[in-house]
């Protein structure tokens, strides 16, 4: 627990420096959750008002971004999800592939496997030469649901349970959705890595 602030002014100043620095990440998450700019702005504001109220509980030096994103998460779940304009639903395609994954073995091979990265791993390759644009492009090729869980997990740093709470799906679904998303990415990124590898040799 941090020492009490001398006064509200000091608290405010510190809050502006430490917390407001993460406005962008906070808005980005809020927008992804609400899927609506007006709601996202409200959610951001509610988040910071709440964060300010509990700022004395924030441990200086710990990850403020992650602290704020958790407040976004809780505020969204408690106050926004009910009124989300686009309810999170499981799409037909996903219902189908999830079902196919429940088959004992081999069922997931149709949705891609780790062959790409596998080969790369065997060959001792790396993703170092893949460009950021290519990574971003690969992310863009995922379907909305896959991208959503992947970003919540890898960018925002939420646990599977937290992601499940946010998207309103069981943990098992999050797990398979993520696994599928990564599988697709592996394939794409390995292709890029190999391409760069060839280019650098020539």
């Amino acid at each position, binding site marked *: 627990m941090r020492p009490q602030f001398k006064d509200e002014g000091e608290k405010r100043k510190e809050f502006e420096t430490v917390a407001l620095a993460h406005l962008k990440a906070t808005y980005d998450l809020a927008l992804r959750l609400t899927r609506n700019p007006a709601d996202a702005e409200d959610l951001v504001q509610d988040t910071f008002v709440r964060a300010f109220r509990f700022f004395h509980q924030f441990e200086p030096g710990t990850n403020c971004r992650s602290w704020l994103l958790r407040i976004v998460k809780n505020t969204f779940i408690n106050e926004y999800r009910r009124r989300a304009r686009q309810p999170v639903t499981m799409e037909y395609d996903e219902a189908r592939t999830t079902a196919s994954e429940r088959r004992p073995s081999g069922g997931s091979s149709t949705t891609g496997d780790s062959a790409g990265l596998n080969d790369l*791993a065997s060959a001792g*390759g790396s993703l170092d030469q893949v460009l950021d644009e290519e990574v971003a492009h690969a992310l863009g090729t995922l379907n909305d649901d896959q991208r959503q869980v992947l970003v919540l997990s890898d960018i925002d740093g939420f646990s*599977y349970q937290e992601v499940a709470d946010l998207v309103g799906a069981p943990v098992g679904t999050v797990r398979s959705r993520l696994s599928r998303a990564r599988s697709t990415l592996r394939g794409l990124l390995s292709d890029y890595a190999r391409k760069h590898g060839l280019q650098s040799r020539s």
Partner: protein
Amino acid sequence: MKCQEFEERVSAYVDGELEAQAAEAEAHAVSCARCARLAALEKQMKQRLAAAYTPVEPPVGLRRRVLQALPAAGPVRSLASPWIRRTWIPATAAALVLIAVLVALPGAGARDFDRALIEHHQALAETPGGIKPCTCPLRSKKFFQGKINAEISVPSFPDKKISLKGVALCRVSGRKVACIVFEEGKSRISFFITERANISLEKLPEVVFKQRFFRVSTYEGFRTVIWNHRGQNYSVVAKESMPQERLLDLALAWQAQ
């Protein structure tokens, strides 16, 4: 654990989400260089994703809006009145409560605000079946369409004489305002909620009605009853022919909700 099983679980493994099988996977990664390499690449992919991801730029003004919403140093100012929190459930309401801070009108006096409200009351002219879009920049078909906006809850009056005609979010004097329009007989009565920021009501005469304080004014043939509560202005506007007592009655009933 065999290589194939490890490969199937590598995603959860690098996320630290394997739970029961974590130790088994760990043991496999220690003994199998190729799978260890696979896990390393998977981790690298996660890192690359984080580095390559570009968050959406927040809209200009969001930072200022957030700062203005924070309680000012000194006496704590509540953002939303209990009435708003209780009754205005959906997104529109939250937007409303939070937005008005956006635009401050330097030096706006009670009279200016009064005039703006009255102009707005006039603009919300009657059309068959509902209220007509006003001409303010925020006017939005989705708020009107001659219907009551289902996203906004409204004060309810047990009195059957007064009926709801429409609800809208509009812009008055540069700030967003909730407009709730009722009719009593052929008289239109508008209720407005807006953020108090920078509007001083001090110059308006104050009246005490059933032990509550209200500010009242008349302007260009219209009558206004205004009060503020926890950072919001609440106004009731009607033509001057409507008795002040009736407006105060409605104001009181609204305040009680």
